[in-house]
């Protein structure tokens, strides 16, 4: 199991051919209190870089982009009633959606945890 990152502060935790996508602790800290999450529809086909979800803080809306191409297989319904989970537990309970990865080669273009850590220093 590996986790990769985008320069836009999304993470994708890879479990077999599925990726679990969310935003990093750095991102949730920068956004502040999350008050609303617009989730993608299950079955939605995303190309790498497409807008997949929108996370709204008190102040502003931020788009969450697809780190890889694929099809949405599950969404975190809990976020519709408790969007603050993204603040409280961004890497586990605050996941946003799961994606069936279309092409594992997309992962190679993403940052590993060391490279991402360097970016957010």
């Amino acid at each position: 199991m590996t986790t990769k990152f985008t320069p836009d502060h999304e993470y994708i935790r890879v479990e077999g051919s599925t990726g679990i996508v969310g935003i990093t602790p750095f991102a949730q800290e920068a956004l502040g209190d999350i008050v609303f999450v617009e989730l993608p529809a299950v079955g939605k086909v995303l190309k790498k870089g497409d807008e997949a979800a929108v996370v709204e803080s008190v102040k502003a809306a931020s788009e969450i982009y697809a780190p890889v191409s694929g099809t949405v297989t599950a969404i975190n319904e809990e976020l519709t009633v408790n969007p603050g989970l993204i603040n409280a537990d961004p890497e586990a309970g605050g996941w946003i959606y799961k994606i069936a990865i279309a092409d594992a080669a997309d992962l190679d273009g993403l940052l590993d945890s060391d490279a991402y850590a360097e970016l957010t220093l």
Partner: protein
Amino acid sequence: MAETSPTNLKTTPLYEQHLAANGRMVPFGGYSLPVQYPSGIMTEHKWCREHAGLFDVSHMGPSFLLLNNPSGDAEADHAAVAAIIEPLICGDIAGLKPGQIRYTLLLNETGGVIDDLMVGRSPLVGGALYVVVNAGTKDGDFARIEAAAGDKAKLTRADADNALLALQGPEAVAVMTALAPGAERLGFMQYASFDFAGEKITVARSGYTGEDGFEILVPNAVAATLWDALLADERVKPIGLGARDSLRLEAGLPLYGHDLDDTISPIEAGLGFAVSKRRREAADFPGAARILAEREGKLSRIRVGLIVEGAPAREGAEILDASGTAIGVVTSGGFAPSLGKAIALGFVPPAYAEHGSKLQVSVRGRAQPAEVVPTPFVPHRYFRQPKAS
């Protein structure tokens, strides 16, 4: 998530205080100011509604307008200084009592709002007004007032030599009174001078949150001392610009440059109360013809409050009627921490402005239900002095 560049940004006398409190500094109105502190906008917002919040609003434009040759007759001198500013605005300044403040509007010839501002009559001296304008418009406002004053009065800007703080919330009065005994006797929209650390501070019972509270003009030399002294009280926490905006939005208070601009009239903006009766009857203010006609119902748009279902509708979002036709636009919108839902201010034709009217807002291309509701969204809790019998 852009980093703040400090280039060309002014700092307030409380800049070091914000850094020490780990404020997240952003550019705002030409100044570097904290959008939030580590506890976050939601916590700050709720703290202010329940206890007392301390804001640095030193970016705003406080000033004093003083008659050059006062006669010594306080009433005559007040009438003279009021006569200088009244032609620019729609408020009754001549009728202010000593120490009384009025919210009013600087208007252009077509009745559009150049700025919204506070004008107070000095509690002590005849022929002196305390005038506080918005940060983004202060240079133009001051030039306009100076031109009107000519050689009859002098406008002294107080923004460079002073900080402006706001202490807001239900516990503000107890905190303020501990540092400035007597402040509790001020009613909403009254001000007075107090001694603090060897200097004079100007304390007004006013604010921009809908809560009871104070706005305090304090000389730079003791500004940090006052900030620290207020924060030493455990009922007080510092509040950033983010919660300042969500608090004023819940209070239904317009933000200049968003809910008000030089095309929007006081009537359209729902600020008819700011057109004072005497001025209305005399029709002696800029744009009077338009404003008085609109007051009789001849207007094409009016500001409404909306409760929005789902994602917050932000500034610029279209307002749609029930069938999906665009009828207006959101001018301020966001999440209301006190209500746990999205709210917005926007403009629609009067036919859609009735409370309970079911409309929609377009957010990212999708129509969401929105209902017209009365403002304020959260009731004001100003402190009003009992009327003297």
